[in-house]
């Protein structure tokens, strides 16, 4: 068996207890919150008789003791059956699958934008240390880092949708547009710009600062001086010798941030009415739709574990000193 495959299998084996542990933790966390789906339903209906409430609780399985509920939940997880959302009257899997593409699209666009722009800006700042480009980039990064995501989102809507009218302010597609083919892709792309930029800005700032610091650190190492003494030009020094080594901390950060990116997408999806998982999770908290919420959280944890596995593989490719074993 090739070592990479063995590494993959072992890590996937390790991922199972991790994801299960997170699921159990989430289960208890949610049950510690006051109220359940029935309370919310009853409240929204403007009142219900105790008999009706009891009947609903029995139907949802909420009247059973905690350990029975946990056992059922774990059994569901093990059989990859995420249960039923009584709120939406749909299986949780169907709900999640319907929303997942929108969130993945937003997240991937945001992370690609944040990573590549952060990389270019960080390299530019490091190459012009203490000169004008470095100072401008550093101040902008600090601003973007310090400004709350939702506020940036609202300001971008104000500028580009309300004042300039260039881009749509919310949703993922023009309602009733009934577009297909290239026209539909263009429509979605136009809707994507503002939320993706908003979500990316914070992370872009983070990557810019990290990349700059990382480049500067590598610039100070002996082998960079050796490369200069060899007659390598400054461009070759920056992009060949320094960049490749400076990328390693960036990759680590990328893996760590998939989780917080999901968190950030809750805010952005809410501000921009983006029909994704983040908003679904946000709503399900208020509706006490625990089956749905647990399903989303399970999926998120699996996503984070999976991405980190990929990052480790990527790491071994970038740095020959690290071997997967």
């Amino acid at each position, binding site marked *: 068996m090739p070592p990479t495959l063995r590494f993959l299998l072992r890590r996937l084996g390790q991922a199972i207890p991790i994801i299960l542990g997170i699921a159990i933790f989430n289960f208890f966390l949610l049950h510690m919150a006051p109220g359940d789906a029935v309370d919310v339903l009853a409240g929204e209906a403007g009142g219900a008789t105790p008999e009706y409430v009891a009947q609903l609780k029995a139907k949802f399985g909420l009247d059973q003791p905690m350990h029975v509920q946990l056992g059922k939940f774990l059994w569901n997880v093990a059989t990859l059956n995420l249960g039923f959302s009584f709120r939406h009257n749909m299986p949780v899997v169907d709900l999640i699958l319907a929303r997942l593409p929108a969130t993945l699209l937003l997240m991937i666009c945001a992370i690609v934008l944040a990573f590549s722009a952060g990389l270019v800006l960080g390299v530019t700042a490091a190459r012009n240390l203490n000169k004008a480009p470095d100072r401008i980039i550093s101040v902008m990064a600090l601003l973007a880092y310090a400004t709350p995501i939702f506020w940036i989102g609202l300001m971008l809507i104000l500028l580009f949708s309300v004042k300039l009218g260039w881009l749509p302010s919310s949703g993922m597609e023009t309602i009733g547009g009934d577009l297909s083919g290239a026209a539909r892709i263009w429509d979605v792309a136009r809707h994507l710009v503002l939320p993706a930029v908003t979500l990316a800005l914070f992370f872009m700032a983070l990557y810019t600062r990290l990349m700059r610091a990382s480049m500067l650190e590598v610039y100070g*190492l*002996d*082998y960079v*001086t*050796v*490369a*200069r*003494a*060899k*007659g*390598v*030009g400054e461009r*070759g020094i920056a992009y060949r*010798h320094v960049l*490749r*080594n400076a990328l390693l901390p960036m990759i680590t950060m990328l893996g760590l941030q998939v989780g917080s990116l999901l968190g950030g997408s809750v805010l952005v999806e809410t501000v921009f009415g983006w029909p994704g998982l983040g908003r679904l999770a946000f709503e399900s908290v208020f509706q006490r739709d625990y089956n749905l919420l647990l399903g989303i959280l399970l999926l998120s944890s699996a996503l984070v574990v999976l991405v980190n596995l990929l990052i480790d593989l990527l790491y071994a490719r*970038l*740095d*020959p*000193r690290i071997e997967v074993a």
Partner: protein
Amino acid sequence: MSARLLEVRDLRTHFFNRGTVAKAVDGVSFHVDAGEMLALVGESGCGKSVTAYSLLRLIADPPGKIVGGEILFEGHDLMKLSDDEMRRLRGDRIAMIFQDPMSSLNPVFTIGAQIAESVLVHRGGTKAAALSRAVELLDLVGIPDSRRRIDEYPHRLSGGMRQRAVIAMALACEPKLLIADEPTTALDVTIQAQVLALISELKQRLGMGVIMITHDLGVVAQHAQRVAVMYAGKIVEQAAVADLFSRPLHPYTKGLLASIPRQGASGGRLNEIPGMVPSLLAMPRGCSFAPRCPKAVDRCTHHVPSLADISPLHPVSCFVAQQEAKL
């Protein structure tokens, strides 16, 4: 008389930091001929390495700056070259080997790629041609199984092998002048001897001039033809190796030679030079060695002695030695 391979005149490299000036190299002059090894010796912090970096104009600016002097390489002043002309010279006509082979190689590239890079930068051509040149160079520096080794990453090689790879990298374009900045300090004693013998042999074979920076007088005695002794940013004595060892004139050189442990002289303390090298920020007014000098007279603490020939080709900057020679 034809131009010297390298002639350095009154080189001054200073470091500026928050209003203070550290005169790391302060008026250094020497020369190197083709096929000759000049040893630059002195304690840590005396300006040996800064001198070497200055020759290649590799001093980070800020905080450092070459504030004066001429560096004549084959008759041309390197200080007058543009940055790009200087870059083209580095690694081609003048190459350098560094102190620590463990950190001299980029960890993410194979040694073959790093040696080939020198060839590609200066000679162009195909990558394949550069790699086959890399194989030749690894053979030249005595790395066995060179064809397979070019695909190894630095972390898989021992310190001695890495330093050989670094030397191969420096020799890629057959430089006229090789600057070796303490190339053996980080290596085991047995490996040290091998690497030094290798540099000496390559010097003979390729007819290079070599500047060997070291604090190891044993290295000097074995391999160099001439020695320049540096102290606190200045050269205090210069002579042919045999002359220096048999007739050291500067009290500092005498102290250095006396502090070499001798075989057979068992027991007792090793000789040492009392006191410490003065801080570059707080240099004494007169001779910088005066506070530690056993022979210092009143004049030494007020005036700076200049380097003057006492016997032919044996300049010393010491009032007392110059006085004694006249008598």
